């Protein structure tokens, strides 16, 4: 496991210490530990069912773990829940809120539950409405809002009371591209003075929004570090993409590529409008592009593109999942 551990500091806002959550005999979260500092946006990354949502629900105070500790700004979340929860804002993955309430009325209700002082409530609500771009719909029933606006209502309720920790479970699912960009921008801004944890299974989102990544699989941390650090671990691995026209050539091309010394892990990544894209991996100093081009020209194959790339986060993740490749490399 590659762990780029942060030294424990006064800035550590969230502390998750060997947390386990069992459902029956199955551990959904298995001895999970991490720490998050103020000003960090951390991405929880993992396939569906990896334990992201469960971990986030524990962190939000929704339910208690089977064992382990959770601290928010040094306050134990399950010994002193009232004070700790005051510091946490949570946006669940799917929530319809109260469909028969109006946006402003609902946010006002939340200020009461979060214990915002009576005098500040009106200002607090108006502030969050502006911040989340809800001014136009503030008088409308939540049940009649579009998914994008409802997501913003969710964000607004999480922000009420100015929590120092924000937990966002898949904040961009179901939004259109413009809304996604806006929400990401908002999250980046919010992350400057808070600790933000967001879960996603969209990898590109992580590299765009997060300073740090926690890859989770089967309830455990698979890898942790900045996007750059994780990529650096694989720097000496390159991917070569070869695009050929004509699906009938698939067999021939695969056979050809296999013969090239140094080409590993050959696979088809895309078939689209009569074009096939292959991907193969090489070790860094080796550049196979000239060989491939030569071979294809010699065999009169309609080569469209040969491109060399570093492995992306997606591929890192697949690797990690597939064969514990990280551990193998560390051992070597």
């Amino acid at each position, binding site marked *: 496991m590659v762990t780029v551990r942060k030294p424990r500091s006064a800035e550590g806002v969230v502390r998750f210490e060997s947390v386990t959550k069992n459902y029956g005999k199955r551990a959904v979260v298995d001895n999970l530990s991490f720490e998050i500092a103020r000003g960090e946006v951390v991405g929880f990354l993992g396939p569906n069912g990896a334990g992201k949502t469960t971990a986030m629900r524990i962190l939000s105070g929704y339910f208690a773990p089977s064992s382990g500790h959770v601290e928010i700004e040094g306050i134990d979340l399950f010994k002193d829940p009232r004070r700790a929860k005051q510091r946490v804002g949570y946006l669940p993955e799917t929530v319809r809120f109260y469909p028969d309430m109006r946006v402003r009325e609902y946010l006002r209700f939340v200020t009461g*539950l979060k214990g915002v002082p009576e005098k500040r409530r009106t200002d607090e609500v108006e502030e969050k409405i502006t911040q989340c771009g809800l001014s136009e719909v503030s008088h409308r029933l939540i049940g009649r809002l579009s998914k994008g606006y409802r997501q913003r209502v969710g964000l607004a309720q999480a922000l009420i009371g100015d929590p120092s920790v924000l937990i966002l479970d898949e904040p961009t699912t179901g939004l259109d591209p413009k809304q996604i960009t806006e929400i990401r921008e908002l999250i980046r801004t919010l992350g400057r003075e808070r600790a933000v944890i967001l879960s996603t299974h969209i990898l590109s989102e992580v590299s765009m929004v997060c300073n740090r990544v926690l890859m989770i699989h089967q309830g455990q941390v698979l890898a942790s570090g900045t996007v750059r650090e994780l990529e650096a671990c694989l720097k000496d691995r390159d991917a070569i993409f070869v695009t050929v026209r004509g699906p009938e050539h698939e067999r021939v091309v695969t056979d050809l590529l296999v013969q090239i010394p140094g080409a590993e892990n050959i696979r088809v990544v895309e078939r689209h409008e009569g074009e096939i894209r292959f991907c193969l991996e090489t070790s860094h100093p080796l550049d196979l592009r000239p060989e491939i081009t030569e071979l294809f020209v010699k065999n009169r194959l309609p080569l469209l593109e040969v491109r060399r790339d570093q492995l992306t986060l997606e591929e890192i993740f697949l690797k990690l999942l597939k064969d514990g490749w990280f551990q193998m490399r560390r051992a070597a």
Partner: protein
Amino acid sequence: MRKAFTVAKKECSSLFHSWTGVFTGAFFFLVTGIFFTVLVLSYAKLSMDPRLAGSQTSFPNVSQTHYIFGSFFLNANVILLFLVPILTMRSFSEERKHETLELLFTYPLSDLEIVAGKLIGLIWFFEILLVPLAGYFLIFHLIGGELDWGPVISGFLGFWALGTAYLAAGVFVSTLTRNPMISAVGTFALLIVFWMMDLAPMTGEGGVPVILSAMSPLQHFRNLTYGILDLRDIIYFGFFFFYFLFLSLRSIETRNWKHFE
């Protein structure tokens, strides 16, 4: 506890903003209105009966208040069997279905504040339904009735106690499921069981029927409609209410160790 009142206020006002609240309110007034009218008319018919005219002895122990309001409250308990399940099915089941309950648990307020808040909100709604019933007294007074305040007040109190006790039971059933329909049917079934326990003494003599009927809320409610204020009945309703409040708390606590969605 201030947060509990925030929850209660929302719970109560959302009932007024929903069809459920409007329909149950309309239903309640319609049925109580019919009961009242029927009872007044039947008393009037009875009092016109020449065989009973002028004779104090042949119409014993039955004051106007007792005849009309005693039966009124006793009959009104049947309305609660239908009213309560519809009111309480929203409290937890619907919130679970809409996944808003999850959020509520992550706010800085205790489980007790959530359950108590919801219960208080429902009780407020129920109390608001009770207020216009006072209008019946006014009508009764205007048509020349003689009011005996004791039984009227204790009957009111009894009906309120029975209603709040049933609401507590309904809220508990509502914490058990995320399906509002199941919650409503389950609450109805539970209330019917309580109702039938009251009938147990008809089935025979002996310990079991007596114990069963003593455990039925109707048994204790009946005393109050007669104008008998007994501490035991009040303790019974208090115990009933807090017992179901406690069960609801335990029930939502289970989210900590099993799937609760």
